[in-house]
Structures are given as structure tokens and as C-alpha cells.
């Protein structure tokens, strides 16, 4: 049982990312996309990155981060939209946080 979380908003602007993190399970994956990419520099990311233990994965859509001139840290996977499709079917369900 694992959930794919699509995070589309900045935690500096809304509570969506924080709410996502409160229901996150250890086998889930996160995709930071659209303004969700800004979360890479948010304090919530620090405790999240510590949870990345091989089962929880954090992904960023490379283009979305690059468009925003955001540096991608090594702890996150760089992916494309086609990978998001694959992740959709590698998890039992998808929740969009927007």
C-alpha cells in the first residue's frame, strides 16, 4: 500500500505541503512539480530528507525546477513527466496537493 503525492504548491505560500507530510507513509513517494519545486528550499524539506531511507522517495520534475532556477539537491531524484506516469502505476493511489 503506497501513495504517490503530487505537490504543486509552495509551502511558503500555502499549507498544502505540510498537510501532505502529516499523512505521509514510509513507502510513499513525493513528486515536487509546478510551484511545489520551491519546497526544496523550505525547512519542511530538512526533516523530510532525513526520512528518505530507501522506501520513501522524493522526486522533482527537472524542467519545472530549472524553469524556476531552482537547484536540485542530491537527495532528490530528477524526473520527467513520463516518470510521473510510471510512478502512478507503481503506487496504489495518487493524491494531488494543490
Amino acid at each position, binding site marked *: *500500500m503506497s501513495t504517490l503525492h503530487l505537490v504543486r504548491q509552495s509551502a511558503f505560500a500555502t*499549507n498544502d505541503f505540510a498537510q501532505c507530510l*502529516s*499523512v505521509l*507513509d514510509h513507502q510513499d513517494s513525493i513528486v515536487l512539480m509546478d510551484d511545489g519545486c520551491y519546497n526544496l528550499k523550505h525547512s519542511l524539506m530538512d526533516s523530510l530528507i532525513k526520512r528518505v531511507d530507501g522506501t520513501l522517495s522524493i522526486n522533482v520534475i527537472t524542467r519545472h525546477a530549472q524553469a524556476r532556477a531552482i537547484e536540485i539537491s542530491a537527495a532528490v531524484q530528477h524526473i520527467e513527466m513520463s516518470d510521473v506516469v*510510471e510512478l502512478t502505476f507503481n503506487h496504489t*493511489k495518487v*493524491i*494531488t496537493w494543490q
Partner: protein
Amino acid sequence: MTSSYTQEKNDLPPSNGLAIINSKAPFSSNHGKDALDVALIFGSFEQKVSLFFQGDGVYQLIANQDARLVSIKDYLKTFSAFEFYDIEDIYVCQQSLVNRQLEEKFHIGDVQVLSSIEFGLALNRHQHVLRF
């Protein structure tokens, strides 16, 4: 990446039904009403649907509100019809209540107040999730 259809490998009982997460306060946006419309249609089609209230969404459940004072059609009153639509499971995020200094005084009965972990587990019991 190799793809896999993990649901087939899952030993747990299959997750079932739709979970609707309400994340917005009741009056300044249409999200609460739009979410309610989806919930009622699923109920009327006899499809399992459960309601989750998190963040500002918890305000939708608080007792003694009156939308008419601000000329809004009081869709919150329709919440008392949930049972009639077989919408049985109503979950509220406890932390969201605490953060807003809200007491557990709701305008409907049978609301389950859950910790964040329990909230996540309850979500996992559903096959699909929509969030408004």
C-alpha cells in the same frame, strides 16, 4: 524504471471507494460546496465515499455557523443528510483542530477525530482520493 502494477501484489484487503479531503474553509471559496456535490453524487450512485476534513477544511464541521448571515446558501445544513446517502465515515484531523483552537463541537454526529497517523491510515483504506 521497470513498471509494476502493485495493487495485484498487495496482500492487504483491497482499498475501496473514494476519499474526499476537504481542505478549505466553508464560505470564501466554492470548494466546500463543490466537494459536497461530488460526495452526494457518489452516495446517490451507491458508491462508497468517505469525507476527510483537514487544515481549514475542519471549519466546515464546526457547530453554530450560519451562512445566511453572509447571503450564502447554507450547504453545510446538507451535511445532516450524509446518513441518508450512506456516507458513513467522516474523519477530522485532530491536529488541524488543535492548531485552530477549536473544540470538538460539530454540527453533525458520528465524526471521528483522528491523529495524523490514523488520518493517513484511513485515507489508505480508499482506492481513490480527490482533494478540494
